[in-house]
């Protein structure tokens, strides 16, 4: 019997097929799934902020793109996943509230997406699919057997990336 593993806000978890892994209601947060073509297990991280270095209260490392990715990738490697074979799919980073007369300079959603791409670029993990930005929330579910990341949005049909 396959279970659905739920990842909360500012958290990451690993998952082994046939189980699937999900995180609900990504707004400006970003969800990052790391997997390989052949491994039966994968990881999903739900980050809230781009960098742990800008914030004094940084004890929860999974809240941040930099520390969260490092920790989850280490855990995947410990399970035997090869860094050189890792791939990523990302979603989220929306701008939920449109304030009139406010400049959009560096909305946190955009900054989260930029930070995630930069870090994955440095450690050479390719992003094979993404669904980021815009102004709506996303629930994501990753099925490691088909490697599909299903994206559910309120009032829109589901899509797979």
């Amino acid at each position, binding site marked *: 019997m396959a279970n659905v593993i739920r990842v909360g806000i500012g958290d990451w978890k690993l998952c082994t097929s046939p189980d699937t892994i999900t995180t*609900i209601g990504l707004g400006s947060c970003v969800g990052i799934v790391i997997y390989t073509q052949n491994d039966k297990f994968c990881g999903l991280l739900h980050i*809230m902020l781009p960098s742990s270095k800008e914030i004094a209260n940084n004890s929860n490392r999974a809240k941040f793109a930099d520390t969260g990715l490092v920790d989850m990738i280490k855990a995947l490697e410990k399970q035997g996943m090869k860094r050189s074979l890792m791939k990523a799919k990302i979603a989220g980073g929306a701008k939920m509230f449109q304030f009139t007369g406010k400049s959009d300079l560096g909305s946190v959603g955009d900054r989260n997406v930029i930070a995630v791409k930069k870090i994955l670029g440095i450690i050479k993990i390719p992003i094979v699919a993404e669904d980021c930005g815009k102004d709506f929330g996303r629930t994501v579910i990753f099925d490691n057997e088909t490697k599909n990341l299903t994206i559910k949005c*309120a009032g829109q049909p589901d899509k797979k990336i």
Partner: protein
Amino acid sequence: MNNQELSSDKIDVLREIGNIGSGHATSALASMLDNSLRMEVPNVKVMSFDDLSELVGGADTVVAAVLTHFKGDVSGMIMFILEIKEAKNLTGHMLHKTHSDDIKDFDYMDKSALKEVGNILMSSYLASINTLTNLGVRNEPPAICVDMAGSVLDYPIIELGKVGDNAIIIDSKFMDNDEPINGFLLFVADEESYEHIFNALGIGC
């Protein structure tokens, strides 16, 4: 200051601010809705982020939320959030219309009406901080969002996440023709602002 360590004195202060704010808001809303409207004594709670979305039915429940930033001696943000079906009841009453169950059936008129309700509630709450403490607070124009609770709450949670892992919630239930409309006010101020409020009332940290 850690939100979790709020003393009962301080919770009383926030509740009193909520009471005065609700009083102002109820009379303003009643004249706008042209109806008798009652507001219950608000409940003040300190909650963890993960529990926040449970207030409005879970992270994937569709909600309507109005959010405004405020600045001055006290700065932060305040959000009025309610489930979409409750929002439809409220705006349906204001605009004399009935809605279908489709979540898309909440048009710009509904949004505009709800934004106004939220604005009145939030401004009243902020005004009561000024009445009670004499501290200056100025609110900015609000914005509205209709989407999954989890994604809507990201915005205040990210702001809160910079300083702690808890939020102060003022639960403001009001009754319209004996039908309760469950709305929540989420009040997020920075650490310094809480100190200003409590110091102004002589109960420093």
